[in-house]
Structure formats: C-alpha cells, structure tokens
C-alpha cells in the first residue's frame, strides 16, 4: 500500500480531516491549504468521501439524527495512509531537487 500514490484530492481531504469537518468545510480548507489551486467539486468530493468511508480511512461522526451537515474525521488507518504518502512525496521531492532541482543544475542539464 505504501507504494500506491494517493490522488491529490484524497491527500488533501485526509490532511483536512485531522479535525472534524463537513463537506463544504473540506472544500474551503483544501482551497486555502493549496493557495486557491485545488478546488474540489462537490460530486468529486462526495465520491471520494464515500470511498474513504468504505476503506475505513475516515469516519462519519454521529451527529443528531436528522443532522443536515455530516462531519467527517480521519481514522488511525487514514493517518497511516497519510504518513506513507508523505514519505512517498518526500522521496519524490528529494529526488526531484537532487537531480533537477537547483537552478544551476537545471541550466547545466539543458
């Protein structure tokens, strides 16, 4: 599992759910985290949340019975997946910087 890349949406959703948030809260948080670059659309987010619920990476918090807004939170399994992904991303980033990163290096290789 550690070898599998998460989608950008899933990565940012998990990162947003260390504190409980509802759908719209996740959208706003992801947009803020990414400096406005990543805007999750409602349909995509809904699908991702359901998949993550099925995988047990997040959990829906028991609200009032007829609660309008369901809140979600990351589980221990979700945290593991997120840590694995951060390790994977670090490797990608370090290799990128090492082989392609510094400005002079990039110019040399051209």
């Amino acid at each position: 599992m550690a070898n599998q890349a998460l989608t950008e949406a899933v990565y940012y959703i998990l990162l947003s759910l260390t504190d409980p948030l509802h759908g719209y809260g996740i959208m706003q948080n992801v947009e803020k985290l990414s400096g406005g670059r990543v805007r999750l659309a409602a349909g995509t987010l809904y699908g991702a949340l359901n998949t993550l619920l099925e995988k047990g990476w997040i959990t829906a918090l028991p609200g009032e019975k007829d609660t309008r807004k369901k809140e979600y939170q990351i589980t221990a399994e979700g945290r593991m997946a997120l840590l694995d992904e951060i390790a994977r991303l670090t490797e990608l980033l370090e290799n990128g910087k090492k082989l392609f990163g510094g400005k002079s290096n990039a110019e040399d290789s051209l």
Partner: protein
Amino acid sequence: MRKTVYKWFWAWEFDKEEKWLNEMAAKGLTLSSMHFNKYIFEETEPGEYQVRIELLDNAPTHAESESYIRFVEETGAEQVASWINWVYFRKKTADGPFELFSDNTSRIKMLNRVISLLTTLGVLCLIAGGYNLFLYFLWGHAVSLVGLLPLAVSVLLGLGMRRLQKKKKLLQKEEQVFDA
C-alpha cells in the same frame, strides 16, 4: 417574469444542454424548472448563476440520491429541477466557480452512467426491432416502417454512444498523466 422555451437535447448532448443553459444564465435567464423538453427560466441578473447537470445512478427521490443532492446543496448550490435520473443544479456566481467534478476519474464515471443508460435503451430497441423483423419473416408480411423504428432508434443511440466514447477516450488519456 418567466420565460418558457421548448428545446430538445439527446441524452448524449448533456454537455451542449449545460452550455446552452449557462448561455441563457449569462443573458439573465436562469433555469427554474424543466420537464422533458420544456425549460422554464426566471429573470435574474445576467451571469448571476451557473448551471450544472448530472445523471444520477438512481431516481432523485431515492435515499442515495437525496443524500447526494443534500451534500451538493450544502456547498451552496440549489437543485432546480430533475427529469428521470437527471438533476439540474444552479449556484450563484458570486459564491465561487461551480463544478460538479474536479478530476478525470469522476468525469469518466459520469460519462459511464450516460453510456450505460444508452446501452440499456439500445439493447431494448434492438430486441424490439429484431423481434418485429423476425415476425415479418415468419409470417411473410410486408415489413412495416413502424416495426423497424426501434432499429432506427438503436442506430441513433449507437451514434450518440460513439460521441461519448470519444470524449471518454480523451479523458482516459489525460487520466494516465494527470490526476485532476
């Protein structure tokens, strides 16, 4: 002020339908309800709303659909109409850009829903048309045009499906490289 427009779109032209609805909204006519080929618009500020269409797996009254529609509405959109499993949402432009899908995987999923709808209809038409044809041969009657109509419809559905398959292929190519 309300304005009623009758216009026909095939199921595989939902992107054209959505584009048209947004052109109307840009002119200040925002969809407020629709039924079959009857679109009712209300006067709004030009560009006040953005409109999006989606085909759901289930009827809009199904519990699963209701929970999805509520979720979308919680993000500031509003369901204005539904027709069979199609739902029509609108959202104020001032509340930010309105999309239902932000990655290729979910765009492909939506296309797959339309494709499987067309496949079901197409197979039904082929069976009906084929059965009629079989009866003509069996009884030696002259082939009537009405009896062959389902076959013509299935050809039409096939052409529509090809359009969607092309779109899907493009998205799948993108999906191999890009996440979103």
